[in-house]
Structure formats: structure tokens, C-alpha cells
């Protein structure tokens, strides 16, 4: 979904009340209402206990089924829980890593990454079992057997330093997106600039999708030397601004802004951003 259409939905979504959203999620007649309510609770950061409980219940929903056997409501509930910052849902999300629906596993992995709870490391590592050899595409589907991008990124963000030897082989996976995710994790876990530079090189890739993903990765890891290359790569300004925001904010946190005032580097990134407005 593009940022623009998301914004449109937000504008319409404002009219729902918290009570209504929770009631919509709990009822089972109308799948569309439930699906939307799960998204809405996450979007508007509704953290009251009734909302969290209803979302956790939705993680085990068997009613809303996609034609391919997937569980759309579970996917949305996992995404919402990732946004709500309540670590008590971590065990319920870990249980989702065994769900037969790839997209539920992916959403749960991303939610676990955001929640930042190291209890997720061991179960995520278990999904890498079999290594790169096992990381093949599911016949007839556009994805691999596991959500490797999300898993590798989560392991990097969660500081799974002991997992480095299991992550490193994915640097050579056939899919460039997986390579990027592994590179990003390796940078986070080792601090070795070699990995940051490898992502910077990806900004020159002929494929727009790859340039975008490298940009987002560099933003996520806050790799300051990437600021200028991001500003000049061929991609949408909206995405460049988000990536530069990621880089700037990790630098600002590092220097202790606002107490510290701005550094020259911060001012340089801000100037790059000004030119993209």
C-alpha cells in the first residue's frame, strides 16, 4: 500500500470510536469489519486491555479464511500488536511463528522485531533451520518457504549476536532482497562498515524495487555515510525522506539531541531533506 492511500484510509477511519472498533473485532458475522477494526486499533495506537485481549484472541481466529487457506484476520491482528508496544503478547506472537500461513508468520516476525523482546530470538532462529539450502521458493507462490527477510531483519534488530554464523550464509542467497536483509542484520550485529557499504552499492542497482529496499534498510540501520547516496539515487522523494529520517534520528539519538544541539552531520542531512520536499 502506498503512503498516499494509507493516508486516505486514515482520514475515513477517524470516525470509528474505540468501543465500536473493539466490538467490531469481537463480533464474528462480518469479516470485513473485523479486519478493518484490527488494523484501526493498531493505527490509532489503542492500548487499553480490552483491545489487546481482542487482538490476541484474533491471532487464533479460524473463521476469516482466504481462498488460499490463509488467515487474513490473524495477519492484521499480529501487525496491530506490533504497533501497540505490549510485551505481554510476545508468547502469543511466538505461537504464530508455527502458523501454516506464511503471511501470518511474516507479520508476527515483524511485530516481534518491533516489540524488541529477546525471547523471540530462539524461535526465530528455529525458522532458519536447514540454512540457505532449505530457503527455497514455494512452488506456485511468490515467496520462499519462510519469511526470511523479516526473520533476518528481526534477528539483527534484536541484537542476536550469537546468531551471526547462522545469518552470514544468507549474504549469498539467490534472492537480492534476502541478501540485503542479511547484510543489514550483519551490520547491526557486527558494526562492520563493509556491510553498510555493501547496501550503499545497492542504491545503484538497475531494479527500482532493490534500490528502494536498500534505502529502507540503510534508514533502519541509521548508516550515516549513506545520506548523500540516498538523496541522489533514482527513487521517489517520499521514500528518500523516510530513509533519511531513519539515518538522522539514529544520529540524533547517538549525539544526545536535543540537549546536545545539532551537529554538522545532522545539518547536512537536514539540508539534503530540504531539497527533497
Amino acid at each position, binding site marked *: 500500500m502506498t503512503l498516499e492511500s494509507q493516508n486516505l484510509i486514515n482520514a475515513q477511519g477517524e470516525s470509528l470510536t474505540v468501543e465500536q472498533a473493539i466490538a467490531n473485532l469481537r463480533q464474528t458475522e462480518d469479516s470485513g469489519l473485523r479486519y478493518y477494526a484490527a488494523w484501526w486499533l493498531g493505527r490509532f495506537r489503542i492500548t487499553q486491555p480490552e483491545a489487546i485481549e481482542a487482538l490476541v484472541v484474533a491471532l487464533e481466529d479460524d473463521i476469516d479464511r482466504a481462498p488460499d487457506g490463509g488467515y487474513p484476520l490473524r495477519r492484521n491482528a499480529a501487525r496491530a500488536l506490533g504497533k501497540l508496544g505490549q510485551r505481554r503478547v510476545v508468547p502469543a506472537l511466538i505461537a504464530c511463528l508455527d502458523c501454516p500461513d506464511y503471511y501470518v508468520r511474516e507479520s508476527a516476525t515483524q511485530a516481534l522485531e518491533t516489540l524488541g523482546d529477546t525471547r523471540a530470538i530462539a524461535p526465530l532462529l528455529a525458522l532458519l533451520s536447514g540454512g540457505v539450502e532449505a530457503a527455497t521458493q514455494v512452488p506456485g507462490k511468490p515467496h520462499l518457504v519462510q519469511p526470511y527477510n523479516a526473520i533476518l531483519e528481526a534477528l539483527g534488530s534484536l541484537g542476536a549476536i550469537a546468531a551471526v554464523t547462522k545469518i552470514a550464509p544468507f549474504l549469498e542467497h539467490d534472492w537480492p532482497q534476502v541478501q540485503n536483509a542479511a547484510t543489514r542484520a550483519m551490520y547491526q550485529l557486527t558494526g562492520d562498515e563493509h556491510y553498510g557499504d555493501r547496501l550503499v552499492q545497492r542504491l545503484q542497482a538497475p531494479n527500482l524495487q532493490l534500490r528502494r529496499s536498500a534505502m529502507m534498510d540503510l534508514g533502519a540501520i541509521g548508516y550515516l555515510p549513506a545520506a548523500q547516496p540516498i538523496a541522489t539515487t533514482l527513487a521517489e522523494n517520499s521514500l528518500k525522506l523516510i530513509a533519511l529520517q531513519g539515518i538522522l534520528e539514529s544520529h540524533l539519538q547517538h549525539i544526545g539531541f536535543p540537549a546536545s544541539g545539532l551537529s554538522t552531520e545532522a545539518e547536512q542531512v*537536514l539540508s539534503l531533506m530540504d531539497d527533497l520536499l
Partner: protein
Amino acid sequence: MSGKGLADISTLVQAIETADSKAAIVVAVRNLAAAKDPAAISTLINVLGYNNPGAAVAAVDGLAALGRIAVPALLEELDGYNYGARAWAIRALALIGDPRALPVLLDTALGDFALSVRRAAAKGIGTINWSQLPEEQVAQAQAQVMEVLQQTTTDPEWVVRYAAVAGLHALALKAVDSSSGAVISQHLQQVISRDQTLTVQARAQMALDALSSDLDELEPSPSSLTQHS
């Protein structure tokens, strides 16, 4: 102007019409934009409606490079555009900074549903070329811009608030009303203490740093239109 003849322009226009892929259209539009010829304006405006982002970016750049001369055509056709084309046209107008576009840019900064368009408009109203407006109208127009930008610093999207802060910074540098600098500085201070997004705070801090060092350097009664434009 590059002095290209009309014949060259029609060849470049034809290249756009006969291009057989999205990528080929982008290249052809870039070539036309590079000619910097007013005869290209109507074609560049048409391209905004192609639903081809690469081509639209090239056309916006081309129109922005042509500047004021492209403004009447952009404004004239604004209502007839589909939404996407309108958004690109507003971006071009924001980049050009012609005061004739101010009313539409003010509305857009406050009310457009697409954040990238609000973002461009907020930056654009701050960087209007004030010297192109009759001198007696400048103070009132700037007061309007100031009000809209202050309001825009509470937009739900951080990047729009960021653009509003950048717009206020630009406005402060060109303000004819001598009290504007102080009002803007005070507002920037509020942004720093109130905004939840570190990047927006940082942009406000940069503006504040720059403006306070400017204020120190200026004479007691600083602002005249010619001095800053």
C-alpha cells in the same frame, strides 16, 4: 532559453508520442524538458496526466526550470486535471514560487489528502518569490502564509510538519513585517518542545539557530523587500 527552433521541439514532442514503453517515454520527456523551450509547456503539462511517475517527475522538473512562463498554463488547466495530474501540477507550481499560485498552494497545504502534495505546497508557500508581487500586497500575503504554515506545523504527518517548518524558516528570511522574525522564532520554539518527531524538532532547531545568528547581524530596522530578495 536554449534557442532551439520550433522544428526541434516538434521532433522532441513527437518522440514522446511515439515512444513504445514507459521507460522510453521518460527518456523522451527528459529530452523535451532539457530543451527549456516555452513551446514545450503544453506537452509537458499533458505528460502529468500519463500515470507514469518517472515521466511526471521529468515534466515537473522541466516546467519548474521554465519558471514563471509556465504558470498561467498550469493554473488554467488545474481544475480539468485528474487527481494525479493535479498533484504533479501543484508540485510544479510550488517549485516555481510564482505568487499567482499562492491561493491554490495555501488551500493545498491545509487541505489536500495526499501528504506528498501538502508537503510540496507547505515548502512552496514559504519560498514564494515575493519580489514578483506588487510591494503593497506583500505584507498581507505573508501574513496569510504565516498563519497557514503555523497551522500546518500540527499536520498529522511528520513530513508535512517538517515542510511547514522549512517554509517558516524561508519566510522568516524574506519577511517584510519586522515583527515576523520574532513570531516565527517563538513558534519554532513551540515546535521543538511539542513535536513528537525528532526530525521535525531538529529542523526547527536548525531554523532557530540560523535565524538567531541572522538577527544578531542585522541592523535595528532590518526588513526591506529589496534587501532580502
